[in-house]
């Protein structure tokens, strides 16, 4: 079995994995990183979104072996030392979640969206989050949250989003 070395939320892990093992199953079942959930099997819902070397990927469509030698940030690694990332704070403040199942992926995708566009319009946020589905909120408060976080992050641009 291939051996992989993957840094996840600041900790480096070395493991033997089946070549077909999905990254999300590696995170959840081998590392206990259960904060990243699985919502579909066709890469449509985005609940499993994580950052791979700082870029958002759907971890259900990446094999664990493809992450060898690379760095993953999950929602659990966003706020080192218990401090919340501005995006997490904004989701809370704007009531951008209800059941919360899509939330980890939505937060990670939103962070990547702001990396590409620090000041997105409402339409740009809606287009940018098209790959992340939510069944509870109707998205309106998610859009508000991303705008709030964008404003906060523009005022404190030095903040590092990956751990």
């Amino acid at each position, binding site marked *: 079995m291939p051996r992989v070395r993957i840094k996840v939320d600041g900790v480096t892990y070395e493991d033997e994995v089946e070549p077909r093992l999905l990254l999300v199953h590696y995170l959840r079942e081998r590392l206990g990183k*259960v904060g990243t*959930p699985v919502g*579909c*099997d066709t890469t449509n*819902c985005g609940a499993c979104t994580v950052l791979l070397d700082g870029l958002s990927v759907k971890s259900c469509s990446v094999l664990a072996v493809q992450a060898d030698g690379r760095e993953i940030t999950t929602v659990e690694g966003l706020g080192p030392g218990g401090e919340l990332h501005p995006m997490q704070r904004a989701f809370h403040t704007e009531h951008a979640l209800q059941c919360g199942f899509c939330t980890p992926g939505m937060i990670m995708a939103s962070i990547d969206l702001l990396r590409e566009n620090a000041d997105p319009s409402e339409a740009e946020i809606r287009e940018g989050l098209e790959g992340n589905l939510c069944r509870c909120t*109707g998205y*309106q408060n998610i859009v508000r949250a991303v705008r709030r976080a964008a404003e906060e992050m523009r005022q404190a641009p030095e903040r590092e989003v990956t751990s």
Partner: protein
Amino acid sequence: MTETVAGREIGSARRRSEDARLITGRTQWTDNLQLPGMCHVAFLRSPYAHARITGVDAAEARQRPGVVAVFTGADLADEQGSLPCAWPVTEDMRHPDHPPMAVDHVRYVGEPVACVVARDRYAAADALEAIDVDYEPLTPVLDMEQAVADGADLVHADLGTNSSYTWVFENGDLDAALRDAPVLIERRYVQQRLIPTAMEPRAVVCAPEGDGFTLWSATQIPHILRLMLATVTGIPEHRLRVIAPDVGGGFGSKLQVYGEEVLALLLARRLGRPIKWTESRSEGNLTVHHGRDQIQRLTLAAERDGTIRGLKVDLLADMGAYLMLVTPGIPLLGAFMFNGIYKMDAYSFTCTGVFTNKTPTDAYRGAGRPEATFAIERLMDELAAELDLDPIEVRRRNWIRHEEFPYDTIAGLTYDSGNYEAATDKALHLFEYDTLRAEQADRRERRDPVQLGIGVSTFTEMCGLAPSRVLGSLSYGAGGWEHASVRVLPSGKVEVVTGSSAHGQGHETAWAQITADRLGVPFEDVRVLHGDTSVSPKGMDTYGSRSLAVGGIALVNACDKVVDKARRVAAHLLEAAEEDLEFTGGRFSVRGVPDQARTIQEVALAAFAAHDLPDGVEPSLDSDATFDPDNFSFPHGTHLCAVEVDTETGFVRIRSYVAVDDVGLVVNPLIVEGQVHGGLAQGIAQALYEEAVYDAEGNLTTTTMADYLIPSAADLPHFVTDRTETPATTNPLGVKGVGEAGTIASTPAVVNAIVDALRPYGVRDVPMPCTPERVWRALNEQEGSA
């Protein structure tokens, strides 16, 4: 009776306590559980909509690496029982056996026929390929109208018919209303089949623990599930503990007793080790119960001035292949709602439940009421068009005026309160109705290829399910009360236990707000516990927008009991008469002597220590209470939708959407607004995007999220939401419920808008979902035939 004065917590937009774990990934989804020795289950499912099973060979699968056991339906036939249906709606309802795993027949694609138990989910899935099942295919029954015709093939041959039941309600002289009616509007509308699609797939874990079993499930109904598991399996109820940990949405789909839940319990018993099953999304689309799926034949009779005389409703409702927990009752929840907010002298409702070789249907957000609301609100627009009246005006001429409440409706309900005028006036103002009508006229005049349409929906619904006596009269298997208990700990902190089972609604926040106000304790000092039958032993769970209107009132009652008892203790400690004590801000003080006081925390400690209690008073301030409502609650509102329809491509864009809802008193406006947004999204999705599609062989072709289109952020507009606040008179808070309102109201608003845009072209209906192709066809078939 109604207290509308908001306290310091009730009415405030508290940010939710639940969020802390949900935004950081410190969640407890059922699929997160890993227990020592735990095995994973995978199900082999029928590829046929209708077939006889003539043989199953699992020998090779049993030899596969990592496989612990393989079971077929026949292996479990003696112990698996039949899945429950708790709502026998008529005495002669036909109710076929429903084994959790098929034994000799399969009746829909996706029905389980065998399962593999293995050391991990990959090994379990691999071994499914090694099971050989021989099927003798039978003709699938897929069309409801054909299914009830003479000589139809049968889903259940032994029943001799595809009809499960026919249920009738009649009031007033409908024949007289229809006879010589100056205006008759006759329509056939189809409520397409929908898939609820909670974001969290179903998951269940069952572990033998001591002399019983603990079962974790992504369920809305831990209490009902426990009772039903005991009934189906014969395992005594007190040996079962059911836990609903964090549950990622339900929308009715997790208001169910699923075969996989029963089987997880049976496998854990057989194998003596923990069992886990988590569905894949495609598996879920096949096997989570579906919603809606009705054919509606409607006749509305009216005078030339628009006054409604009467309404006749004939439904065929698709049950799917089996009756599940409340399958047959769902369309009947609409029976009381087809009259909407309107006065009329005669009403007739007939519903036939029909078996087909499709996934069973059951509750989906709104459950019977969206279907009814769609019908009446579409008909009101058609009536307006027939009479060349504004659709608002025709509604005004028929709706119950605010001074007429309480009002006994033709469908046999008593609407306690409402103010349709106020909600409509507010919505018209926010929408800029007259301006949009002017723009519409202008575009029509110019023959603009992009036409503007305006859709109206003045809805009401019945929620707060439900008065137990009413449920009993409808043959429902249980009551509709709810339970709460309040534990005032010696330190003065408070634990609230609720029988409601939250899965995204924010109970942990809203219940703490109610408690903080009633007991005068800080919000932060209240912790809300739910969703575990060992912690919360009594409850009727969460569905039907009942949590606040029933469970919230149980909590109010429990808090009031705490205060009553604390008052006795405080009076004793203060050496004062009870009636001389005032209780404000968590403090009992002697009237006129404000310095003589005890806080509720001090009283709690005294009640715990029990050194000096009045005679006959037991230690502790803890209380519990139930609430069984006398009536349903009736949220209402006015929703207005403007769409732009491209007459060349059929593409529909929602230009603006205004929702003014009246849900009575609001505990947390942030949560209420969120519920409205999410409800709108699902109702709009029925109008524009979603449909569970079966092919001619009975295969579901929308098994993935690439085929079954739940809307993304890019597919939905910005909503303008506002409220009027007419308190319910049937509970002490004046609350009504908000979980389903948006979904119920929005579907007809959108379709009315589309039809309104195209009416000059002769279009008077577009079937849902109104995809560009369907809009284009409606337009071109009209023009072709003109």
